[in-house]
């Protein structure tokens, strides 16, 4: 199982690198979709069926949105690779972070031993033992989401509502046609 998990993670890394380096935007979007569906498969392996289902749905919508950005592209839309020194500096930075992560990794709990076993005060054990009795939900993930931590879900709904309002305002036909150069918005400010 670990071999399968590792190969899926490798697949995701390769897809992410392809998404960054490919010239065509549509190929980059499809490679990003491969990353998302790969993570959905990993969730299934990690015994998180709810996450796998949600990830698939979210990834389909994300792909539709991203493909919308590649429509009507004139030739100028695809940016070429950036200049040399900047890439070298970013590469050095990522390498430095990776080296420090190598030092930090042995301090993490071993893979396969959940954090809740090490911390006695973690709420997970309580949720697992009393969840069915207190909420009546056999699926403990939904029991936490909609009962124990319902305020978090309310906050999530608020964020989604705000983001949808923002996207609607940005993409409304009225704004797209009446202020083509962004001048009117600047005048109002």
């Amino acid at each position, binding site marked *: 199982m670990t071999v399968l998990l590792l190969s899926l993670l490798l697949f995701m890394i390769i897809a992410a690198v392809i998404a960054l380096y490919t010239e065509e935007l549509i190929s980059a979007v499809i490679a*990003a979709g491969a*990353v998302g569906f790969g993570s959905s498969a990993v969730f299934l392996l990690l015994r*998180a069926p709810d996450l796998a289902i949600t990830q698939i749905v979210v990834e389909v919508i994300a792909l539709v949105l991203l493909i919308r950005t590649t429509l009507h592209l004139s030739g*100028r839309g695809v940016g070429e690779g950036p200049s040399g020194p900047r890439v070298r500096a970013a590469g050095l930075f*990522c390498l430095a972070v990776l080296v420090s992560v190598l030092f930090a990794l042995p301090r993490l709990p071993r893979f396969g031993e959940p*954090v809740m076993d090490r911390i006695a005060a973690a709420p997970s054990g309580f949720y697992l033992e009393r969840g069915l009795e207190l909420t009546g939900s056999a699926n403990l*993930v939904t029991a936490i*989401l909609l009962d124990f931590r319902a305020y978090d879900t309310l906050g999530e709904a608020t964020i989604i509502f705000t983001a949808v309002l923002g996207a609607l305002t940005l993409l409304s036909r009225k704004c797209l046609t009446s202020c083509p150069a962004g001048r009117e918005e600047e005048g109002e400010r």
Partner: protein
Amino acid sequence: MSPVYLLVFVLFLVGVFGLLTRRNLVKLIISVAVIEAAVNLFLVLAGYRREGIAPIMTEQHHRAEEFAARAVDPFPQAMVLTSIVIGLSLLALLVGISLRLYHIYGTYDLSEIRKAAREEDR
């Protein structure tokens, strides 16, 4: 030490590298999505139990303590579920901003957008 965590960190760093070096807005959005996927995976990995079962009670589990000793941690899963959906709304907002910029400047290239904006100011 399992290489699983290391690979997740490498995935995270691929996203950070893209965010630092790319100039195309769509590729920046993709980098943010890759970082999100890596962080979500790390949180779920931290709650995984070897040979564990999904945190869903079935008829076979009569005693709650026994079930609690075998199931994977449901708490990170619930929080990551929230995070995935928030990630989608973030992506929708970013796509909206990018489409608007493309509509105004006719390109996704950040350096060209900056140049055009500077010329407009003059």
